[in-house]
């Protein structure tokens, strides 16, 4: 099977003051289509940096990043924006919903970057909200929803444009246990029933258990790669 994500000898370093800090050291990684990958590791291990590279939010200092057949390390900022709109669905720890918009308007946001008609956009928003079980809260604004509901709206926003890859940064980090389980069940359903490839950064071992593959990072190096039987 052709890998959906391939990282070859990827390094990432930042300059802090006069110091150069290398966060990732020569990472090699492949992710197959349909995988549900949990990226784990202590704070500062480089999990989020790695996720950002895969999602096209950041670019490596050296090395190659291939996602969905594109060398995204070679794309310009503008092209990378277009590429993200086509290929990536984001789920953030703090949901990052736009507070002035209703749930359905929030879900519609990624579709504004497509050429879909208004009626088609509306139809897709409806489908996405039904999928996450929030169709009846479509007209509610984020501050009228619980944390778990807000994260479900964020998931609907992430899947509404049918992206190639879902990237989740601590998707349960701001939720209570019950809501966290609901979110993880939803992500698992998206992975199993809708064949969505998911890359998730998490601190939570319970959340990681939902993933089909667990990858550990420590001090910028991959230390452990575990696959689970479906």
């Amino acid at each position, binding site marked *: 099977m052709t890998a959906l994500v391939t990282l070859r000898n990827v390094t990432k370093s930042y300059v802090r003051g006069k110091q150069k800090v290398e966060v990732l050291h020569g990472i090699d990684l492949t992710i197959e289509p349909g995988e549900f990958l949990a990226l784990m590791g202590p704070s500062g291990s480089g999990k*989020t*940096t790695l996720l*950002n590279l895969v*999602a096209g*939010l*950041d670019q490596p200092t050296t090395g190659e990043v291939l996602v969905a057949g594109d060398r995204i390390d070679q794309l310009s*900022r*503008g092209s990378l*924006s*277009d*590429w*993200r*709109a*086509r290929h*990536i669905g*984001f789920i*953030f720890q*703090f949901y*990052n919903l*736009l*507070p*002035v*918009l209703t749930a359905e308007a929030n879900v519609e*946001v*990624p579709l*504004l*970057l*497509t*050429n879909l008609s208004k009626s088609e956009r509306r139809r897709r928003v409806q489908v996405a909200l039904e999928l996450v079980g929030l169709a009846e809260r479509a007209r509610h604004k984020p501050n009228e929803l619980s944390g778990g509901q807000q994260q479900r709206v964020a998931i609907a*926003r992430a899947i509404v444009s049918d992206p190639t890859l879902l990237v989740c940064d601590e998707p349960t980090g701001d939720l209570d246990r019950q809501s966290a389980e609901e979110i993880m069940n939803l992500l698992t359903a998206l992975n199993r029933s809708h064949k969505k490839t998911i890359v998730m950064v998490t601190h939570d071992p319970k959340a990681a258990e939902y993933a089909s593959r667990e990858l550990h990072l420590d001090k910028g190096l991959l230390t452990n790669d575990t696959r689970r039987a479906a």
Partner: protein
Amino acid sequence: MKMFRQIGAVTAMNFRSLPQRVSTSLVVVIGIAGVVAVLVSVLAMSTGLIRTMENTGRDDRAIVLRSGSMAETSSALDRNSAKLIVDGAGIKHDANGDPITSAETMRILSLHKKDDDSEINVILRGVGPRMLEVRPELKIVEGRMFEPAVTEVIVGKSAHSQFKGLNVGDVVHSRGANWTVVGVFETGGDSHESSLMTYAETLISIDQRGSFQSVTALLDSPSSFQAFKDSLSSNPALAVDVVREREYYQQQSKNMSTIISIIAYVVGGIMAVGAVFAALNTMYSAVSARLQEIATLRALGFGSAAMVASVLAEALILALIGGVIGALLAWMFFNGNTVSTSGGGMGQMVFELAVSPQLMILGVVWACVIGVLGGLFPAMRAARLPVAMALRAV
């Protein structure tokens, strides 16, 4: 299309979050309204002055001054010169073949303003017996015309409304004579309405002068001016300057209106710099307040151009609102208000502030420029935001 939809969507989101930033947004609106109100109202003075002076004089009238005199106040024409001038070519003649001219003199009267009692110099113009033929636009609107050889004056409409003691029947006390007001005149809103008029020979006799200061001549047509000018210039017995009446008054107002315009732009410019900083501050805080939104939208694939356009659009709309408010305030409070000033060689002159549509548009354009300058750097900040870093910061 997609780009416009992006810009429209992000801009709409900006505006929907405006109520959360109402106080900082008001700083921009009020600041810019102040700049525009001051700029427009000061420029309205210049516009009003120019409009009044452009309204004064006709192309088929010429004014003759002593050579080298910049204004009537510094001119002197003896009686012989005055007689020679009326023989010039191109002057219109009446049915009897007499030239239609008015040899004139003037002096300054000191009057008190109605509103603050301040003492202001006003022109008392002595005019010739054919003045009504030379200036057919002059109409008596109250009382009657002065009689020759008695100390009677008629007062212009603007002077009548601005100064104390100029009602028909009042007496104006001055050096050498007490002038009885016998009538009020209008001349279509030109600068003469700020003055008083009497018979020239009466004024000369009271002032014990031997000369006039100017001769105003009605010409056959505007095109007769050159022939008139040439005929006087070629006369070796005369040393005079000949100018069209309209040009003369325009020249007289030029310095004053230039100074007013400079003041308007300097004051407006200084205030505008302040308003740009207010706008910068507001838009920077708007971008900071929306950092999470901007980072999220950028992550979802919205381009830099949409961010720049949305921040600029917000700054522009706030500036536009401020500009319109400022222009309307200037119009409401100042348009049509009469003010008086001393003009080069003209004594005091009363004119109306004119907040014209062009001035209001100019004010709004200034507002938009302030808005764009104030929004540009914050917009660039929004566009250049490193998305990954910004997402981590929120």
